[in-house]
């Protein structure tokens, strides 16, 4: 097997240009998409139906949400802006909701105005919920403290104290479930772009390096290898190892580039992160093997690969967060793509700071996919080789 691997690595010089391009493209795309992410904050109008003391604080908290660009307007301005497309959405805080927020009690029902189902609405909703929850928590805490000090301090002053305390990140958390959804979507444009494009462009590198097996077959080198004292299993293994090394090294370099050049925070679970990425490379390799099984030659593989890579990236959540997809069929289809599972696992580790248990399902999905597709791919390839 060492001879085969030696041959493959020696032949890498034929592919170094492709490798370099696939290294540069994710960086370029990340740069532009991250910039675009900054510029394209969702423009949301806010209407306060009633004047309450907490209004100012609520507005401050809402402005902390990086994905939102807020404008405090009147009802008519909101309506007109949404109809004209000036605002992505409008949030209406009526008297009842504002009083509940002021009192720190739930449930709170907010009304969102929009003209159509947009990919961004869920993100907007999540951002609003986060900000409102923070204010409700602070108000709840304020009430508790007031009760304790038995009226020596006014509600406004206590509230200010609590707000300051939150800024110092006191270890006080209050589980809020006053709004309808319990889950919170975190979105980091830089993470989305770098990880998404890294996973996307790696597909090409992995599949094209594995595609060498088709070249071996068409040039009849495979016939020579078959009659040599080396088993075809070892030949497949050598090709998988080679493809894995090339694909994984690409991801490794891009992760390091993200950390040291783009100042990406990859969180505290680097070992788990690289483990998930290893599973992803293996699953992509299995997809590549399946495509090799379907292809008669390198030309056919070259035609199939972009179709598969782009489709997987689109439905798997490489180009945009999967959370903004609402179509049930697309969401179900996403499960067949390695990108979907890898993105989910990486988000769990990096954005949500979850540990090993949060990535078990995704990791097993990737491994299962690897085993099944690789076996089918090999069988198809062998069948194709006999004809």
């Amino acid at each position, binding site marked *: 097997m060492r001879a085969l691997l030696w*041959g493959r690595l020696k032949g890498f010089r*034929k592919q170094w240009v492709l490798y370099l391009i696939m290294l540069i493209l994710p960086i370029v795309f990340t740069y532009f998409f991250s910039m675009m992410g900054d510029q394209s904050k969702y423009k949301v109008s806010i209407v306060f139906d009633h004047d309450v003391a907490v209004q100012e604080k609520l507005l401050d908290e809402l402005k902390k949400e990086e994905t939102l660009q807020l404008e405090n307007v009147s009802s008519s301005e909101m309506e007109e802006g949404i109809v004209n497309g000036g605002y992505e959405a409008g949030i209406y805080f009526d008297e009842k909701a504002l009083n509940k927020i002021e009192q720190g009690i739930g449930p709170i029902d907010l009304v969102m105005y929009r003209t159509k189902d947009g990919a961004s609405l869920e993100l907007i909703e999540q951002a609003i919920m986060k900000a409102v929850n923070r204010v409700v928590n602070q108000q709840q805490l304020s009430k508790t403290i007031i009760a304790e000090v038995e009226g020596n301090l006014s509600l406004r002053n206590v509230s200010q104290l609590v707000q300051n305390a939150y800024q110092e990140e006191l270890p006080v958390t209050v589980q809020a479930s006053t709004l309808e959804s319990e889950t919170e979507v975190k979105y980091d444009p830089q993470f989305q772009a770098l990880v998404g494009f890294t996973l996307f462009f790696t597909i090409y590198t992995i599949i094209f390096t594995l595609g060498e097996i088709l070249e071996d077959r068409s*040039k009849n080198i495979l016939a*020579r290898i078959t009659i040599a*004292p080396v088993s075809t299993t070892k030949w497949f293994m050598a090709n998988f190892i080679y493809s894995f090394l090339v694909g994984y090294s690409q991801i490794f370099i891009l992760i390091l580039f993200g950390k040291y050049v783009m100042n990406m925070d990859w969180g505290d679970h680097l070992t788990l992160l690289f483990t998930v990425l290893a599973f992803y490379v293996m699953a992509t390799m299995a997809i590549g093997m399946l495509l090799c099984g379907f292809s008669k030659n390198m030309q056919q593989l070259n035609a199939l690969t972009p179709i598969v890579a782009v489709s997987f990236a689109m439905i798997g959540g490489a180009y945009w967060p999967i959370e903004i997809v609402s179509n049930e069929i697309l969401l179900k289809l996403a499960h067949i793509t390695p990108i979907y599972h890898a993105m989910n696992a990486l988000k769990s580790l990096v954005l949500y700071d979850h540990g090993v248990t949060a990535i078990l399902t995704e990791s097993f999905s990737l491994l299962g996919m690897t085993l099944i597709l690789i076996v089918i791919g090999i069988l198809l390839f062998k069948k194709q080789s*006999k004809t």
Partner: protein
Amino acid sequence: MALLEAIELSKTFQKHKAVDDLHITIREGEVLGLLGPNGAGKSTTISMIASLLEPSRGEILYKGKSVLKKSEIIRKELGLVPQEIALYPEFTGKENLMFFARLYKVPKKERAERIAEVLSIVGLSDRASDKVEKYSGGMKRRLNIACALLHKPKLLIMDEPTVGIDPQSRNHILEMVKQLNTKGMSILYTSHYMEEVETLCDRIAIMDHGSIIAEGKKQDLIGMVQDQDLLYVSVEQQVAGFEQAVKEIDEVLFMEREDFRYKIGLKQQAEILPELFTLAHEYGIRIQGIDIQSPRLEDVFLHLTGRSLRDE
């Protein structure tokens, strides 16, 4: 002694029978030529013998042992020269040889020496460090052969090794095959070039439509048509009725026309020239040249199949 024996070998692809009930024997130390037109089933036969393709039916014995049951029996002693150039073009000649030497488990200590030796055999020592993509077609073919010689195989299978190359490289390859054979290597040589097979092979098997239609030494095969002489007649112009008139002569077995040249098969030692000249005079045809030849393998194929090898 039979080194390899294929018995009642058949291979069917879907409904197409590529090889049909084939029987072939390769003796130790001989060059066996497998001659046949394109599509006759030569490459399929070779693939089965080399254990690359499973026969639909039949048995292959190497030194009396079944190759189908245990392919390692033949693989370690087999050198295969595929019809395609089975090389990495981005590698140098030497790197290609190094790859295959490692693959065939040539001991590390012997590799450099063995590579130099095969480079010398194929006459590429001075171009060993050049990339294969810069080689001419003939050089690639020679390196293609060199890769199959690294592990000193006992049986060398060469599938159309001279396709598409210049006469100089072809001669080099033919000489090389002769030398390898004199050193004791058994060779199965397939080609649709009759001259190569005639020059190189101790025995010849003629294949058509997946079957061996004749097998034996060159002279034995030619003996099948020994009762014929061939007369080539060049004429200045063609006149209707002349060909039919010649065919009606008793001694004429067949007659074919190639532009202004007639190929006439005659019963052995038949003397038709006076009659031929008379007919030519009658039809106003001027004969420009006459050539009498003994039968060749080409004629054997024609005799057996009614078609020319070159027509395929």
